[in-house]
């Protein structure tokens, strides 16, 4: 599905928001062919090892099985102790970065590792394209967003949208965002804690907790009015 598309924000804010996704095709015949050529479990593990080396702000693994489940950094799971040990052949993995230089380094390492998985980067097109060039890659296919159509009166205000659209599965509630802004404003929790609390609702790990904290900080300050 398209869960890392449609992330809203201005260029400055989006410059702290990149998702690197690694997956094997969910097609029986292709998967079979691919499996004959490589150890998929090993490839998924290597993908995440490379991502984790470059310090992502969040990351997640979805473990498909008869009873599917997921683990993410924002939910408090740790890579080496919990996520890595449970890596399965068809696990879906991703990592979120707040710095383009890290994305560039990840792509270079992935190209060198040649693990055979499809790799997708969500982020500002021209900057991701530059990363591809630096890594000696040429972009293959793109997915563009034409934005939100229909009853736009039903969606929350822009800055709240900037946060909730980082969970493309729709699990981060706009009302929770507002509730946590109030708590930050009243100094009951910090903006960083608010970012983690929001990220914990995201099942796949694509939610950028660091960017959410920044946006909450901004909104809490705006609500307080101008400083004397």
């Amino acid at each position, binding site marked *: 599905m398209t869960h890392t598309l*449609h992330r809203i924000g201005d260029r400055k804010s989006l410059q702290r928001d990149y998702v690197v996704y690694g997956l094997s095709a969910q097609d029986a015949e292709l998967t079979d062919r691919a499996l004959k050529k490589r150890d998929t479990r090993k490839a998924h593990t290597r993908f995440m090892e490379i991502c984790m080396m470059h310090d992502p702000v969040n990351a997640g693994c979805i473990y498909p099985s008869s009873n599917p489940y997921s683990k993410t950094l924002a939910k408090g799971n740790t890579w080496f102790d919990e996520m890595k040990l449970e890596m399965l052949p068809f696990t879906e993995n991703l990592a979120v970065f707040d710095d383009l230089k890290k994305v560039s380094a990840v792509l270079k390492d992935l190209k060198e590792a040649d693990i055979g998985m499809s790799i997708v980067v969500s982020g500002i097109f021209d900057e991701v394209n530059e990363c591809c060039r630096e890594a000696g890659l040429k972009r293959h296919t793109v997915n563009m967003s034409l934005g939100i159509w229909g009853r736009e009166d039903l969606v929350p205000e822009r800055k709240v949208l900037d946060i909730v659209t980082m969970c493309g599965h729709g699990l981060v509630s706009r009302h*929770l965002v507002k509730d946590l802004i109030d708590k930050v404003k009243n100094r009951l929790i910090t903006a960083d804690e608010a970012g983690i609390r929001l990220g914990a609702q995201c*099942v796949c790990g694509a939610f950028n907790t660091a960017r959410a904290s920044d946006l909450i900080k901004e909104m809490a300050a705006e609500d307080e009015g101008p400083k004397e």
Partner: protein
Amino acid sequence: MKIDDSCIRCRQCIPYCPVAAIVYDGKKDLVYVDQDECVECGVCMKSEICPVKAFIQPELKWPRTMKAKWSSVVYVHPETNIQGRGTDEMKTNDVTGRFRPGEVGFALELGRPSTGARFGEAEKLTTVLARLGVQFEPMNPLTGFIDTETGRFLESWFGHALDDEFRNTKVMTFIIEFKVAEERMLQVIEAIRRVSREIDTVMSVGLIVKCDGSGGIPIKPKLDKEGIRYYINGKTNVGLGRPSYDFDLC
């Protein structure tokens, strides 16, 4: 999802619901889940915010079962054997060759962002799209509900009636996936824009295209010329998947 009698009315759970289905009735001093609005995503229970564990998950019956399945991120749809609400779409295009040069893929996700959608809204679009002769994605679970010739819902699906109760079933989101020849892209966009004024929800609209030999995006000039706005960000498949699909065979 329901709330049992152990609820202490602390109301801490209310903001956690992505579709605002948890309601406090001040007159009765009661917190309950609006069953019509609830999309059975389970965020309330999984958040573990309730201090007395008052959320209970009753056994679901058709068509309510669809709420849980279509709101889940990890559910594997048995009819397609694919996990989640859509397909791999362009994410594995370097391996599958699903989108070839000269084709444009569309993904219309109804209910996104932050709104939810009822299945009946899909038909408003699919009937128009079928008339335009689009190629619906066979591995998308929503395609399984429709007659791809007419775009209408089938009368039944695996023995379940696709009736008004089904049409009125609200889920987190669902995705209509299809592709068309590039020369028809603008016509289809215009048709979608017209129908978007009639739907009772929102949708996030995505376009997919294979890049040209130098990594360029071939549909950009057409979108720019027509003044069709697109975000500066999106998804890029960097072409590392193996075995590579041989696009030269197209």
